Protein backbone atom coordinates (compact mmCIF):
# COMPACT_ATOMS: atom_id res chain seq x y z
CA UNK A 1 0.00 0.00 0.00
CA UNK A 2 1.29 3.45 -0.82
CA UNK A 3 0.93 5.24 2.51
CA UNK A 4 1.54 8.67 1.01
CA UNK A 5 -1.39 8.19 -1.30
CA UNK A 6 -3.54 6.97 1.57
CA UNK A 7 -2.65 10.01 3.60
CA UNK A 8 -3.56 12.32 0.73
CA UNK A 9 -6.90 10.57 0.54
CA UNK A 10 -7.59 11.03 4.27
CA UNK A 11 -6.50 14.65 3.89
CA UNK A 12 -9.11 15.21 1.20
CA UNK A 13 -11.78 13.39 3.20
CA UNK A 14 -11.17 15.55 6.24
CA UNK A 15 -11.40 18.71 4.12
CA UNK A 16 -14.65 17.52 2.55
CA UNK A 17 -16.16 16.67 5.91
CA UNK A 18 -15.26 20.10 7.27
CA UNK A 19 -16.62 21.94 4.21
CA UNK A 20 -19.87 20.02 4.44
CA UNK A 21 -20.21 20.60 8.13
CA UNK A 22 -19.51 24.34 7.92
CA UNK A 23 -21.70 24.99 4.90
CA UNK A 24 -24.59 23.03 6.44
CA UNK A 25 -24.61 25.63 9.19
CA UNK A 26 -24.79 28.48 6.73
CA UNK A 27 -21.12 29.42 6.61
CA UNK A 28 -19.80 30.77 3.33
CA UNK A 29 -16.38 29.82 2.05
CA UNK A 30 -13.95 32.67 1.49
CA UNK A 31 -10.29 32.96 0.63
CA UNK A 32 -7.70 35.54 1.57
CA UNK A 33 -4.52 36.58 -0.24
CA UNK A 34 -1.42 34.43 0.08
CA UNK A 35 0.78 37.53 0.41
CA UNK A 36 -0.21 40.14 2.95
CA UNK A 37 1.46 43.37 3.91
CA UNK A 38 3.83 42.96 6.86
CA UNK A 39 2.39 46.22 8.27
CA UNK A 40 -0.98 44.60 8.77
CA UNK A 41 0.44 42.13 11.26
CA UNK A 42 2.64 44.67 12.98
CA UNK A 43 -0.33 46.94 13.42
CA UNK A 44 -2.36 44.36 15.31
CA UNK A 45 -0.40 44.14 18.53
CA UNK A 46 0.48 40.73 19.89
CA UNK A 47 -1.29 38.75 17.19
CA UNK A 48 1.31 36.69 15.43
CA UNK A 49 4.88 36.50 16.68
CA UNK A 50 6.99 38.54 14.26
CA UNK A 51 9.76 35.97 14.28
CA UNK A 52 7.35 33.31 13.08
CA UNK A 53 6.35 35.15 9.92
CA UNK A 54 7.86 34.28 6.56
CA UNK A 55 8.84 37.56 4.91
CA UNK A 56 9.24 38.40 1.25
CA UNK A 57 10.30 41.67 -0.36
CA UNK A 58 8.48 42.78 -3.51
CA UNK A 59 10.25 44.67 -6.34
CA UNK A 60 9.24 48.07 -4.93
CA UNK A 61 10.87 47.21 -1.62
CA UNK A 62 7.71 46.63 0.37
CA UNK A 63 7.87 43.82 2.90
CA UNK A 64 5.22 41.15 2.52
CA UNK A 65 4.46 38.07 4.58
CA UNK A 66 3.15 34.72 3.53
CA UNK A 67 -0.30 34.44 5.15
CA UNK A 68 0.44 33.65 8.81
CA UNK A 69 -3.19 33.82 9.94
CA UNK A 70 -6.65 34.14 8.44
CA UNK A 71 -8.71 35.89 11.11
CA UNK A 72 -6.86 39.20 10.87
CA UNK A 73 -7.19 39.76 7.09
CA UNK A 74 -10.86 38.71 7.18
CA UNK A 75 -11.59 41.18 9.96
CA UNK A 76 -9.70 43.90 8.11
CA UNK A 77 -11.58 43.26 4.89
CA UNK A 78 -14.93 43.32 6.63
CA UNK A 79 -13.98 46.57 8.37
CA UNK A 80 -13.67 48.29 4.96
CA UNK A 81 -17.32 47.59 4.24
CA UNK A 82 -18.79 47.88 7.72
CA UNK A 83 -17.89 50.26 10.51
CA UNK A 84 -20.53 48.64 12.65
CA UNK A 85 -22.10 45.23 12.58
CA UNK A 86 -25.60 45.60 11.17
CA UNK A 87 -26.23 41.95 10.37
CA UNK A 88 -24.36 38.77 11.16
CA UNK A 89 -21.79 37.24 8.81
CA UNK A 90 -20.74 33.62 8.69
CA UNK A 91 -17.50 32.76 6.90
CA UNK A 92 -15.34 29.70 6.72
CA UNK A 93 -11.97 29.05 5.14
CA UNK A 94 -9.66 26.17 4.35
CA UNK A 95 -6.25 27.36 3.31
CA UNK A 96 -2.55 27.20 4.04
CA UNK A 97 -0.93 29.29 6.73
CA UNK A 98 2.83 29.79 7.03
CA UNK A 99 4.68 30.10 10.31
CA UNK A 100 8.28 29.44 11.11
CA UNK A 101 8.44 27.67 14.45
CA UNK A 102 11.45 27.90 16.78
CA UNK A 103 11.77 24.17 16.28
CA UNK A 104 13.50 23.73 12.90
CA UNK A 105 12.01 20.25 12.41
CA UNK A 106 8.47 21.63 12.36
CA UNK A 107 6.86 22.31 9.00
CA UNK A 108 6.34 25.93 7.99
CA UNK A 109 3.23 25.26 5.95
CA UNK A 110 0.02 24.00 7.53
CA UNK A 111 -3.51 23.78 6.21
CA UNK A 112 -5.92 25.54 8.48
CA UNK A 113 -9.70 25.25 8.46
CA UNK A 114 -11.92 27.43 10.53
CA UNK A 115 -14.97 29.59 10.90
CA UNK A 116 -15.38 33.27 11.67
CA UNK A 117 -18.81 34.16 12.94
CA UNK A 118 -19.33 37.92 13.15
CA UNK A 119 -22.19 38.52 15.54
CA UNK A 120 -23.02 40.24 18.82
CA UNK A 121 -21.97 38.49 21.97
CA UNK A 122 -24.68 36.29 23.43
CA UNK A 123 -24.79 32.94 25.19
CA UNK A 124 -26.81 31.62 22.24
CA UNK A 125 -24.22 32.25 19.55
CA UNK A 126 -21.31 31.27 21.79
CA UNK A 127 -23.04 27.97 22.60
CA UNK A 128 -23.89 27.46 18.94
CA UNK A 129 -20.24 27.91 17.94
CA UNK A 130 -19.02 25.46 20.58
CA UNK A 131 -21.71 23.06 19.44
CA UNK A 132 -20.50 23.38 15.84
CA UNK A 133 -16.95 22.63 17.00
CA UNK A 134 -18.19 19.52 18.77
CA UNK A 135 -20.35 18.51 15.81
CA UNK A 136 -17.38 18.91 13.47
CA UNK A 137 -15.28 16.54 15.55
CA UNK A 138 -18.13 14.06 15.66
CA UNK A 139 -18.50 14.27 11.89
CA UNK A 140 -14.83 13.36 11.68
CA UNK A 141 -15.68 10.20 13.66
CA UNK A 142 -13.37 10.88 16.57
CA UNK A 143 -13.65 8.96 19.84
CA UNK A 144 -13.29 10.53 23.28
CA UNK A 145 -14.02 14.11 22.31
CA UNK A 146 -13.55 16.75 24.98
CA UNK A 147 -14.00 20.49 24.71
CA UNK A 148 -12.38 22.63 27.37
CA UNK A 149 -14.11 25.94 27.92
CA UNK A 150 -12.59 28.94 29.64
CA UNK A 151 -13.17 32.67 29.85
CA UNK A 152 -10.64 35.49 29.72
CA UNK A 153 -12.47 37.89 32.06
CA UNK A 154 -12.41 35.80 35.25
CA UNK A 155 -8.63 35.64 35.42
CA UNK A 156 -8.12 39.19 34.12
CA UNK A 157 -10.34 40.54 36.87
CA UNK A 158 -8.28 38.70 39.48
CA UNK A 159 -5.03 39.95 37.99
CA UNK A 160 -6.30 43.52 38.01
CA UNK A 161 -6.52 43.35 41.78
CA UNK A 162 -2.86 42.45 42.17
CA UNK A 163 -0.01 44.95 42.07
CA UNK A 164 2.17 42.89 39.73
CA UNK A 165 5.15 43.90 37.63
CA UNK A 166 5.05 42.85 33.99
CA UNK A 167 7.57 40.09 34.68
CA UNK A 168 5.55 38.79 37.62
CA UNK A 169 2.31 38.77 35.67
CA UNK A 170 3.98 36.86 32.82
CA UNK A 171 5.38 34.36 35.33
CA UNK A 172 1.95 34.01 36.91
CA UNK A 173 0.38 33.34 33.51
CA UNK A 174 2.94 30.63 32.79
CA UNK A 175 2.26 29.00 36.18
CA UNK A 176 -1.52 29.17 35.66
CA UNK A 177 -1.17 27.58 32.21
CA UNK A 178 0.89 24.79 33.80
CA UNK A 179 -1.51 24.46 36.76
CA UNK A 180 1.58 24.79 38.90
CA UNK A 181 0.03 25.47 42.32
CA UNK A 182 3.35 25.25 44.15
CA UNK A 183 4.96 28.06 42.22
CA UNK A 184 1.80 30.19 42.13
CA UNK A 185 1.94 30.11 45.92
CA UNK A 186 5.62 31.05 45.98
CA UNK A 187 5.05 33.89 43.56
CA UNK A 188 2.10 35.32 45.45
CA UNK A 189 3.82 35.12 48.82
CA UNK A 190 5.99 38.08 47.84
CA UNK A 191 3.04 40.12 46.53
CA UNK A 192 1.22 42.59 48.72
CA UNK A 193 -2.49 41.90 48.19
CA UNK A 194 -5.71 40.85 49.83
CA UNK A 195 -5.65 37.26 51.09
CA UNK A 196 -9.04 36.51 49.55
CA UNK A 197 -7.69 37.41 46.09
CA UNK A 198 -4.55 35.35 46.63
CA UNK A 199 -6.63 32.42 47.80
CA UNK A 200 -8.84 32.76 44.71
CA UNK A 201 -5.84 32.71 42.36
CA UNK A 202 -4.44 29.66 44.13
CA UNK A 203 -7.73 27.90 43.36
CA UNK A 204 -7.63 28.52 39.60
CA UNK A 205 -5.66 25.36 38.73
CA UNK A 206 -8.30 23.33 40.56
CA UNK A 207 -11.22 24.98 38.77
CA UNK A 208 -11.25 22.21 36.21
CA UNK A 209 -13.88 19.57 35.51
CA UNK A 210 -17.61 19.16 35.01
CA UNK A 211 -19.25 22.55 34.35
CA UNK A 212 -21.89 22.48 37.07
CA UNK A 213 -19.50 21.48 39.82
CA UNK A 214 -16.70 23.84 38.73
CA UNK A 215 -19.09 26.79 38.49
CA UNK A 216 -20.24 26.15 42.04
CA UNK A 217 -16.65 26.23 43.31
CA UNK A 218 -15.86 29.31 41.23
CA UNK A 219 -18.79 31.16 42.77
CA UNK A 220 -17.40 30.54 46.22
CA UNK A 221 -14.19 32.38 45.42
CA UNK A 222 -15.46 35.15 43.18
CA UNK A 223 -15.04 38.48 44.90
CA UNK A 224 -16.32 41.10 42.44
CA UNK A 225 -19.51 41.70 40.52
CA UNK A 226 -17.61 41.41 37.23
CA UNK A 227 -16.54 37.90 38.20
CA UNK A 228 -20.13 37.06 39.11
CA UNK A 229 -21.34 38.36 35.74
CA UNK A 230 -18.75 36.25 33.95
CA UNK A 231 -19.84 33.17 35.87
CA UNK A 232 -23.50 33.65 35.06
CA UNK A 233 -22.57 34.14 31.40
CA UNK A 234 -20.63 30.86 31.35
CA UNK A 235 -23.52 29.20 33.15
CA UNK A 236 -25.88 30.40 30.42
CA UNK A 237 -23.59 29.03 27.71
CA UNK A 238 -23.19 25.67 29.44
CA UNK A 239 -26.89 25.28 30.11
CA UNK A 240 -27.52 25.55 26.37
CA UNK A 241 -25.02 22.72 25.85
CA UNK A 242 -26.43 20.54 28.62
CA UNK A 243 -27.17 17.63 26.25
CA UNK A 244 -23.46 17.35 25.50
CA UNK A 245 -22.26 17.55 29.08
CA UNK A 246 -20.14 14.41 28.77
CA UNK A 247 -17.94 16.22 26.24
CA UNK A 248 -17.52 19.45 28.18
CA UNK A 249 -14.85 20.47 30.66
CA UNK A 250 -14.69 23.88 32.28
CA UNK A 251 -11.16 25.13 32.78
CA UNK A 252 -10.57 28.52 34.39
CA UNK A 253 -6.86 28.00 33.91
CA UNK A 254 -7.38 28.19 30.14
CA UNK A 255 -6.09 31.67 29.41
CA UNK A 256 -5.15 33.58 26.28
CA UNK A 257 -2.93 31.93 23.76
CA UNK A 258 -3.58 34.65 21.23
CA UNK A 259 -3.91 37.98 22.96
CA UNK A 260 -6.79 39.17 20.82
CA UNK A 261 -9.26 36.81 22.48
CA UNK A 262 -11.79 38.38 24.81
CA UNK A 263 -14.54 36.35 26.42
CA UNK A 264 -15.26 32.68 25.90
CA UNK A 265 -12.28 30.52 24.90
CA UNK A 266 -12.31 26.85 24.03
CA UNK A 267 -10.18 24.04 22.71
CA UNK A 268 -10.94 20.51 21.57
CA UNK A 269 -9.10 17.29 22.36
CA UNK A 270 -9.63 13.77 21.06
CA UNK A 271 -8.37 10.48 22.44
CA UNK A 272 -4.87 9.27 21.50
CA UNK A 273 -3.66 12.66 20.36
CA UNK A 274 -1.53 14.66 22.76
CA UNK A 275 -2.33 18.18 21.56
CA UNK A 276 -5.47 20.21 20.99
CA UNK A 277 -6.99 19.54 17.56
CA UNK A 278 -9.13 22.67 17.60
CA UNK A 279 -8.92 26.10 19.20
CA UNK A 280 -11.24 29.05 19.30
CA UNK A 281 -12.80 31.88 21.15
CA UNK A 282 -14.40 35.27 21.02
CA UNK A 283 -12.46 38.27 19.70
CA UNK A 284 -14.70 41.29 20.07
CA UNK A 285 -11.88 43.85 20.17
CA UNK A 286 -10.03 42.84 17.01
CA UNK A 287 -12.21 45.06 14.77
CA UNK A 288 -11.16 48.07 16.83
CA UNK A 289 -7.66 47.71 15.38
CA UNK A 290 -9.21 48.70 12.04
CA UNK A 291 -11.55 51.35 13.43
CA UNK A 292 -14.64 49.17 13.28
CA UNK A 293 -16.89 47.52 15.81
CA UNK A 294 -17.06 43.90 14.68
CA UNK A 295 -17.66 41.43 17.50
CA UNK A 296 -16.97 37.84 16.46
CA UNK A 297 -16.35 34.31 17.59
CA UNK A 298 -14.54 31.58 15.71
CA UNK A 299 -12.39 28.51 15.81
CA UNK A 300 -9.72 26.86 13.71
CA UNK A 301 -8.12 23.48 13.32
CA UNK A 302 -5.14 22.15 11.43
CA UNK A 303 -5.91 19.50 8.84
CA UNK A 304 -2.51 17.85 9.39
CA UNK A 305 -3.31 17.35 13.09
CA UNK A 306 -6.77 15.99 12.32
CA UNK A 307 -5.31 13.51 9.85
CA UNK A 308 -2.68 12.39 12.35
CA UNK A 309 -5.26 12.11 15.14
CA UNK A 310 -7.64 10.07 13.04
CA UNK A 311 -4.72 7.89 12.00
CA UNK A 312 -3.76 7.32 15.66
CA UNK A 313 -7.31 6.35 16.55
CA UNK A 314 -7.60 3.95 13.61
CA UNK A 315 -4.25 2.29 14.22
CA UNK A 316 -4.71 1.45 17.86
CA UNK A 317 -8.48 1.37 17.85
CA UNK A 318 -8.59 -2.32 16.92
CA UNK A 319 -6.57 -3.56 19.90
Amino acid at each position, binding site marked *: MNSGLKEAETFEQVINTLSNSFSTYGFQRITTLAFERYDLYCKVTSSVNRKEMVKVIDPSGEVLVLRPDVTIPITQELSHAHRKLTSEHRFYYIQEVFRRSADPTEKIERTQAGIEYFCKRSPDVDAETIFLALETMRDLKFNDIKIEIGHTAFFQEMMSQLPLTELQSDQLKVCIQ*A*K*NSVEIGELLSSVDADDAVKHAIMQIPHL*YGKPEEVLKRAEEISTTSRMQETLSYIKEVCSRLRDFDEHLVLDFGLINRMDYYSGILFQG*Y*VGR*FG*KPVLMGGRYDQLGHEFGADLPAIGFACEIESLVKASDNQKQKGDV
Partner: protein
Amino acid sequence: MNCLTVAMGKGRIANQAIALLEEAGILFSDFTNKSRKLIFMDDSNSIKLIFVKAVDVPTYVERGAADIGVIGKDVLLEDPKDVYELLDLVIGKCKLSVAGYPETKLNELTQLTVASKYPKIAKLHFEQKGIRTNIIELNGSVELAPLIGLADCIVDIVETGTTLEENGLVVIEDVAEVSARLIVNKASFAIKTDRIQKFIADVKTGLEVYS
Protein backbone atom coordinates in the same frame (compact mmCIF):
# COMPACT_ATOMS: atom_id res chain seq x y z
CA MET B 1 -5.39 -1.26 27.07
CA ASN B 2 -6.88 1.82 28.64
CA CYS B 3 -3.99 2.29 31.04
CA LEU B 4 -2.13 5.36 32.22
CA THR B 5 1.40 5.62 30.90
CA VAL B 6 3.99 7.09 33.26
CA ALA B 7 7.45 8.05 31.96
CA MET B 8 10.56 8.30 34.11
CA GLY B 9 14.30 8.47 33.63
CA LYS B 10 16.04 5.46 35.13
CA GLY B 11 18.13 6.14 38.22
CA ARG B 12 17.85 7.44 41.73
CA ILE B 13 14.79 9.62 41.16
CA ALA B 14 12.92 6.72 39.57
CA ASN B 15 13.74 4.43 42.52
CA GLN B 16 12.47 7.02 44.97
CA ALA B 17 9.39 7.70 42.85
CA ILE B 18 8.59 4.00 42.73
CA ALA B 19 8.96 3.81 46.51
CA LEU B 20 6.64 6.80 46.77
CA LEU B 21 4.08 5.13 44.50
CA GLU B 22 4.29 2.04 46.70
CA GLU B 23 3.23 4.14 49.66
CA ALA B 24 0.32 5.26 47.49
CA GLY B 25 -0.68 1.64 46.94
CA ILE B 26 0.60 1.49 43.34
CA LEU B 27 2.93 -1.51 43.23
CA PHE B 28 5.45 -2.53 40.59
CA SER B 29 6.47 -5.97 41.90
CA ASP B 30 8.24 -6.85 38.63
CA PHE B 31 10.53 -3.89 38.88
CA THR B 32 14.09 -4.46 39.99
CA ASN B 33 16.93 -2.03 39.70
CA LYS B 34 19.01 -4.41 37.63
CA SER B 35 16.39 -5.25 35.07
CA ARG B 36 17.08 -4.01 31.55
CA LYS B 37 13.37 -3.98 30.72
CA LEU B 38 12.01 -0.63 29.63
CA ILE B 39 8.32 -1.25 30.27
CA PHE B 40 6.69 -2.43 33.51
CA MET B 41 3.02 -2.90 34.38
CA ASP B 42 1.81 -2.28 37.90
CA ASP B 43 0.23 -5.16 39.83
CA SER B 44 -3.31 -4.06 39.02
CA ASN B 45 -2.36 -3.91 35.34
CA SER B 46 -3.66 -0.38 34.94
CA ILE B 47 -0.49 1.70 35.00
CA LYS B 48 2.32 1.30 32.52
CA LEU B 49 5.73 2.55 33.57
CA ILE B 50 8.16 3.35 30.78
CA PHE B 51 11.82 4.20 31.19
CA VAL B 52 13.23 6.81 28.84
CA LYS B 53 16.26 9.06 28.91
CA ALA B 54 15.54 11.64 31.61
CA VAL B 55 15.81 14.72 29.39
CA ASP B 56 13.30 13.12 27.01
CA VAL B 57 10.57 12.71 29.65
CA PRO B 58 8.96 16.14 28.95
CA THR B 59 8.96 15.41 25.19
CA TYR B 60 7.14 12.10 25.71
CA VAL B 61 4.58 13.84 27.88
CA GLU B 62 4.10 16.91 25.70
CA ARG B 63 3.46 14.71 22.68
CA GLY B 64 1.11 12.43 24.58
CA ALA B 65 3.27 9.30 24.22
CA ALA B 66 3.08 9.25 28.02
CA ASP B 67 0.20 10.68 30.05
CA ILE B 68 2.32 11.46 33.06
CA GLY B 69 6.01 12.06 33.68
CA VAL B 70 8.36 12.36 36.63
CA ILE B 71 11.20 14.76 35.92
CA GLY B 72 13.62 17.14 37.64
CA LYS B 73 12.74 20.82 37.62
CA ASP B 74 16.17 21.53 36.08
CA VAL B 75 15.09 19.83 32.83
CA LEU B 76 11.80 21.78 32.77
CA LEU B 77 13.60 25.07 33.35
CA GLU B 78 16.11 24.43 30.59
CA ASP B 79 13.53 23.40 28.03
CA PRO B 80 9.99 24.45 28.99
CA LYS B 81 7.23 22.33 27.47
CA ASP B 82 3.50 22.86 27.14
CA VAL B 83 2.43 20.47 29.92
CA TYR B 84 0.77 20.69 33.32
CA GLU B 85 3.14 20.66 36.25
CA LEU B 86 0.86 19.41 38.98
CA LEU B 87 2.96 18.26 41.91
CA ASP B 88 6.27 18.83 43.58
CA LEU B 89 7.32 15.32 44.58
CA VAL B 90 9.95 16.70 46.97
CA ILE B 91 12.33 13.87 45.99
CA GLY B 92 15.58 14.37 44.11
CA LYS B 93 16.21 17.66 45.87
CA CYS B 94 19.30 19.62 44.88
CA LYS B 95 20.32 23.05 43.69
CA LEU B 96 21.36 24.60 40.42
CA SER B 97 24.33 26.77 41.30
CA VAL B 98 27.12 28.85 39.87
CA ALA B 99 30.47 27.38 40.89
CA GLY B 100 34.10 28.24 40.31
CA TYR B 101 37.37 28.98 42.06
CA PRO B 102 36.79 30.74 45.40
CA GLU B 103 38.41 33.94 44.15
CA THR B 104 36.20 34.20 41.02
CA LYS B 105 34.43 37.55 40.69
CA LEU B 106 31.43 37.27 38.40
CA ASN B 107 30.96 40.94 37.55
CA GLU B 108 34.51 42.12 37.04
CA LEU B 109 35.06 40.74 33.55
CA THR B 110 33.75 42.37 30.38
CA GLN B 111 32.48 38.98 29.40
CA LEU B 112 32.06 35.95 31.63
CA THR B 113 32.69 32.54 30.06
CA VAL B 114 30.32 29.98 31.55
CA ALA B 115 30.33 26.24 30.92
CA SER B 116 27.11 24.36 31.55
CA LYS B 117 24.85 21.48 30.70
CA TYR B 118 22.10 24.09 31.02
CA PRO B 119 22.98 26.83 28.51
CA LYS B 120 19.57 28.54 28.56
CA ILE B 121 19.28 28.65 32.35
CA ALA B 122 22.85 29.94 32.61
CA LYS B 123 22.31 32.64 29.99
CA LEU B 124 19.05 33.82 31.56
CA HIS B 125 20.49 33.86 35.06
CA PHE B 126 23.36 36.14 34.13
CA GLU B 127 21.22 38.26 31.78
CA GLN B 128 18.93 39.08 34.69
CA LYS B 129 21.96 40.21 36.67
CA GLY B 130 23.16 42.31 33.76
CA ILE B 131 26.31 40.25 33.21
CA ARG B 132 27.43 39.58 29.64
CA THR B 133 28.27 35.95 29.02
CA ASN B 134 29.75 33.58 26.56
CA ILE B 135 28.08 30.23 27.18
CA ILE B 136 29.78 26.93 26.38
CA GLU B 137 27.47 23.95 26.30
CA LEU B 138 29.01 20.77 27.70
CA ASN B 139 27.45 17.37 28.23
CA GLY B 140 29.38 16.14 31.24
CA SER B 141 32.36 16.63 33.59
CA VAL B 142 31.47 20.29 33.61
CA GLU B 143 33.73 20.85 36.68
CA LEU B 144 36.70 20.36 34.43
CA ALA B 145 36.03 23.56 32.47
CA PRO B 146 37.37 26.10 35.02
CA LEU B 147 40.26 23.77 35.94
CA ILE B 148 41.73 23.77 32.48
CA GLY B 149 40.81 27.33 31.68
CA LEU B 150 37.93 26.66 29.30
CA ALA B 151 35.53 28.74 31.38
CA ASP B 152 35.53 31.23 34.27
CA CYS B 153 32.76 29.40 36.07
CA ILE B 154 30.10 26.73 35.62
CA VAL B 155 26.36 26.42 36.19
CA ASP B 156 25.51 22.91 37.34
CA ILE B 157 23.51 20.69 39.69
CA VAL B 158 24.98 20.57 43.17
CA GLU B 159 23.84 17.81 45.52
CA THR B 160 26.45 17.32 48.20
CA GLY B 161 29.22 19.51 46.83
CA THR B 162 31.77 16.71 47.06
CA THR B 163 32.72 16.79 43.39
CA LEU B 164 33.25 20.53 43.57
CA GLU B 165 35.31 20.27 46.74
CA GLU B 166 37.57 17.54 45.41
CA ASN B 167 38.34 19.75 42.43
CA GLY B 168 39.01 22.86 44.49
CA LEU B 169 35.81 24.64 43.42
CA VAL B 170 33.12 26.29 45.52
CA VAL B 171 29.51 27.38 45.08
CA ILE B 172 29.50 31.09 44.26
CA GLU B 173 25.75 31.62 44.18
CA ASP B 174 22.53 29.64 43.77
CA VAL B 175 20.39 29.81 40.65
CA ALA B 176 17.35 27.68 41.52
CA GLU B 177 16.06 24.95 43.80
CA VAL B 178 15.44 21.67 42.04
CA SER B 179 13.21 18.73 42.88
CA ALA B 180 11.28 16.12 40.93
CA ARG B 181 7.95 17.26 39.49
CA LEU B 182 4.94 15.36 38.26
CA ILE B 183 3.96 16.57 34.81
CA VAL B 184 0.83 15.69 32.83
CA ASN B 185 -0.12 15.88 29.16
CA LYS B 186 -2.90 18.43 28.64
CA ALA B 187 -4.97 16.26 26.32
CA SER B 188 -4.72 13.27 28.67
CA PHE B 189 -5.87 15.48 31.51
CA ALA B 190 -8.95 16.46 29.50
CA ILE B 191 -9.79 12.97 28.32
CA LYS B 192 -8.80 10.85 31.32
CA THR B 193 -9.64 13.49 33.94
CA ASP B 194 -10.99 11.16 36.61
CA ARG B 195 -8.23 8.59 36.32
CA ILE B 196 -5.47 11.17 36.40
CA GLN B 197 -7.00 13.07 39.30
CA LYS B 198 -7.29 9.78 41.20
CA PHE B 199 -3.62 9.05 40.44
CA ILE B 200 -2.63 12.51 41.67
CA ALA B 201 -4.67 12.11 44.84
CA ASP B 202 -3.01 8.71 45.45
CA VAL B 203 0.43 10.20 44.94
CA LYS B 204 -0.41 13.03 47.34
CA THR B 205 -1.36 10.49 50.01
CA GLY B 206 1.86 8.64 49.26
CA LEU B 207 3.79 11.90 49.62
CA GLU B 208 2.42 12.47 53.11
CA VAL B 209 3.48 9.01 54.24
CA TYR B 210 6.80 9.09 52.40
CA SER B 211 8.07 12.44 53.60
